[in-house]
Structures are given as structure tokens and as C-alpha cells.
């Protein structure tokens, strides 16, 4: 099985989503706009190249996971990667809005990402993953199951 299809510990993406939520909300309170493009890059690395290249996914795998018990569930890596790609699109659009002077629009887009990431981190309900499922089914993609 290719590395990109190997089932992953579902707690890794949730940790990533938790960090993303905290960073975006903190950035919003402090009006630190650089947080938005920085996390667009963080998400892009994990989405485009896999968990080993996402800084916080790697932090989870190397520093946190060894201290936890084995995962109760594994999941197909593609839905969370797709969700991260959707996050990249939103955060890139937010960055463009900041650059164009539309600060309110920029933060609104970033807060959408923070809200969805926070929901996923708190409950495991991943809206982007569900979207992937809809697209995968339409295209007849076989998921890792």
C-alpha cells in the first residue's frame, strides 16, 4: 500500500485542528494577520505532501503519540488531507483579502476555518472530510476500508 494511502491515527489530524483553532483565534484577538498565511503553509505542507511534512502532524507523531496508548481507530488519510486543502483555500483567500485591505473579510474567512477546525477538534465531526466522501462517491473512488 502506498504511503499516501496508509491508514493514519485519527488523533493526529485532530491535534492539528486544535492547534490551528487556537492559533487562528489567538491571531484574531491580537489582530496578528501573519498567523493566517503561516497556517495556510502549515496546512498546505500536510495536505500536499502527507503527515510527515505537516509540522504539527509530525509533532504529534513524534512527541505526543508515543506517550499515548495505541489508537482505537485508524482512518483513511485522504479525507483529512482534503479538509486541510479546503482550509488552505480559505486561508489563502483570507490572505489575499488582507493584502487587498479587506481586513474584515479576511478575518471572516479565517474564522470559518477556525470554527470548522474547532468543531472537528472538539467532537471529531469533520465537515471537510464529509465533503470528500461526497466527491469520492461521485467519482467512484475506493477508500481505504
Amino acid at each position: 500500500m502506498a504511503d499516501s494511502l496508509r491508514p493514519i491515527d485519527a488523533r493526529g489530524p485532530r491535534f492539528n485542528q486544535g492547534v490551528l483553532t487556537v492559533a487562528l483565534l489567538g491571531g484574531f484577538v491580537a489582530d496578528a494577520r501573519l498567523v493566517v498565511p503561516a497556517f495556510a503553509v502549515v496546512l498546505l505542507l500536510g495536505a500536499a505532501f502527507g503527515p510527515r511534512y505537516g509540522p504539527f502532524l509530525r509533532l504529534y507523531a513524534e512527541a505526543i503519540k508515543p506517550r499515548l496508548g495505541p489508537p482505537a481507530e485508524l482512518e483513511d488519510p485522504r479525507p483529512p488531507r482534503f479538509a486541510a486543502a479546503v482550509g488552505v483555500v480559505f486561508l489563502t483567500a483570507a490572505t489575499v483579502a488582507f493584502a487587498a485591505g479587506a481586513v474584515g473579510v479576511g478575518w471572516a474567512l479565517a474564522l470559518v476555518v477556525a470554527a470548522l477546525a474547532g468543531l472537528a477538534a472538539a467532537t471529531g465531526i469533520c465537515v471537510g472530510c464529509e465533503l470528500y466522501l461526497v466527491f469520492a462517491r461521485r467519482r467512484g473512488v475506493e477508500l481505504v476500508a
Partner: protein
Amino acid sequence: MTLRLLIVAALLAAFVAFRIAYDRRRRRIASDDRPVPRLPGHLVDGAEATWVVFTTPYCASCGPVVDRLQGHGPVITVDATRDPDLAEAFRIRSAPTVLLADAAGAVHGRFVGAAAVDAYLQTGSSASERRGLARSRAERIG
């Protein structure tokens, strides 16, 4: 700054509320003791003991569970997202959930998660033993 803090506080409150509602729902499902219906005949097909594995398309643990059940009797997989009515009738809330049914479709065992299936397979060897164990387990589940 105050408005921003209020927005963040509202979002955090929403996360907490979602989490509480989510946990309550899971507890309610776990304590649901309504009688379990019989599985439809076309799934059990008259076999003495049939494993019915409820899966979802991106359940990575489901394939290995199906593989491990091979050799322990007929295995039927049901994609819960394609047959939501059946999944709801058996109150399937996560995948894999495995039901062990007899020839009449009566459910004698219910195993949620790969670890539960593994633990169960390690305790029973023959079909009759599996059925007996399943029955006692089902009784414990209530």
C-alpha cells in the same frame, strides 16, 4: 479588542456546547436498551453463525476486521452510509460494528471497534463456542 474577545468567547462556548451535546448523545445511545430486531434473511442466508460487519467508506479499521473474520464463518459487509435505514434499525453509531447472528437473523453478539472483535476471536474457536460466548456477551450487554 472587546468585540474580538466576545466573538472568540462565543466560538469557544459553541465548541463546548457541541462537545457536551455530542457526549450526551453518545451516552444516550450507549444506554439504549430497546430490543434489537432480527437481521433480514438475505443477510444471514441460513448460516449457523453469520458475521455482519457495518462499515463506512473511510473506515480504515473495517477492512482488517473483515479479513480477520474470514475463516470464522460467513462474513457480510454492509456500508452503513448506503443502507442508513438498516444501520439505524441496529443503532449503528460507529464503524466497524460487528453483529453475530444466527440462521434466523437473531443477533447474539455486538462488537464495536476492531479491538472488541479481536478480543472476542481470541476467546472462541468453534462456531458453537462462538455462539455460546456471543449469547452470554449479549446478555451482559443487555
